[in-house]
């Protein structure tokens, strides 16, 4: 199962490091990373393999959200199907 993680907010040191460290701890493999920084705003998307996470999908969603609060950015994890169904026929 693939998930899409998005991080949105003001750029600062260590955002990717923090997210990646957490994901490694949850046995979540990162397949792809895209990021842009426009006028100091950090916009990142990760495609991750979340077939066998240490915790449930819902718990990972909540913990990532919490990390986002600590970093002052918005972090979302969503099942990739919502994007596939909306943008692919």
């Amino acid at each position, binding site marked *: 199962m693939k998930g*899409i993680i*998005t991080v949105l907010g003001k750029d600062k040191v260590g955002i990717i490091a923090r997210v990646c460290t957490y994901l490694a701890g949850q046995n979540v493999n990162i397949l*792809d990373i*895209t990021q*842009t920084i426009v006028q100091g705003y950090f*916009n990142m*998307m990760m*495609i991750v393999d979340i077939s066998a996470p240490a915790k449930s*999908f*819902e718990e990972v*969603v*909540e913990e990532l959200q919490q990390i986002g609060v600590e970093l002052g950015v918005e972090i*979302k*994890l*969503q*099942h*990739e*199907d*919502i*994007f*596939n*169904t*909306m*943008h692919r026929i």
Partner: protein
Amino acid sequence: MITLGEVQETNKMIREMNLDVRTITMGISLMDCAHSDLTVFNRNIYDKITRLGENLVKTGEDLERQFGIPIVNKRVSVTPISIAAGGLKTDSYVSVAETLDKAAKEIGVNFLGGFSALVHKGFTESDLKLIRSIPEALAVTERVCSSVNIGTSRSGINMDAVKLMGSIVKRTAELTSDRDSAGCSKLVIFCNAVEDNPFMAGAFHGVGEPECVINVGVSGPGVVKRALEEVKHKDFESLCETIKRTAFKVTRVGQLVAQETSKRLGVPFGIVDLSLAPTPEIGDSIAEIFQAMGLEEAGAPGTTAALAILNDNVKKGGVMASSNVGGLSGAFIPVSEDHGMIEAVQKGALTLEKLEAMTCVCSVGLDMIAIPGDTSEATVSGIIADEAAIGMINNKTTAVRIIPVIGKGVGDIAEFGGLLGYAPVMPVNGFSCASFIDRGGRIPAPIHSFKN
């Protein structure tokens, strides 16, 4: 592979344009709960609803987290109680409504629809018992919704029922006068009611439906409005293309949620209803779509055409996005649930007569409209008859959900609370239709119903 731009587009719709799945509605058949004893019947329906609906709310919440999209309401619809309760030896169905209310609270759904009767060609004894129980049932329960089908294109209009419903609406208003007559916001009078509608207050689980089914209602007026702002000065073809494309994307999300819910609960998927349902939130309004199309206010000349375009293109975009489209599927134009419509009424741009014209091309009818509390029963019946005639002749669903607000007059504000919103009391034509309504009997089936 999904691109950053596509991910951003979806999340922007959710974050900034109020894209959501409006409702997951579980339809439950109560046919096997029939019994002649009231206590046994009530126990049967309570057990069945709480057993089948036990995981509905939790599943909805899990999917919300998994896909990152709000699923606003989780609801239940049941077999019309006048049919399911037909064998009961009792004079009143109020205790059945109380049981439904208790079951809804137990499983955590915010509305349960199906305190209903289908009387388009005539009343059974049970239909009459149900209809006479409606005012008290809606006054003593919180989450139960009621509907009565009084006409179809196939069989005409039951004018005895139209007359009776005029007095039932007034009685319901009186019994809930302490809450701005909010009981009437849970009562819908239909012509051509559909059996798989997931939206309240008119949802019921039709007799042609399976044992249990999942129907999903999508929404997204905000998304359509924002898309239309991008094509502000373009021609009508561009306007229609934009609505279609947006409706397609919105419906795909509904289809995904419907399939996942059905898989997780082990209940068959029924339909996705493509309706654009507004809420009182800013940016979640049908009236704002009219403004994005180029009208100063909802109700200005051109509004009926604008609504026709919207309704038709929402369907055209949506049908390809889902394997099964059903329910009401179109644009809703409830006054109290749409801040743009409320403003249009307050500015004098939108009248009851214009709303009636708009119902010829929208998906439902006169919805959530507050009228003066001293409006006569016959006038309420007259409004119902007009709306039913539009539905019967045009082969479409029409409905009336009006609230005669006891103790309030034109210009006052009625507060219904929550998703039901608030509404300015609108003036009603004061000339009498009493002798017309008093005739009784049926309006025969229209000529175009003879298709066999």
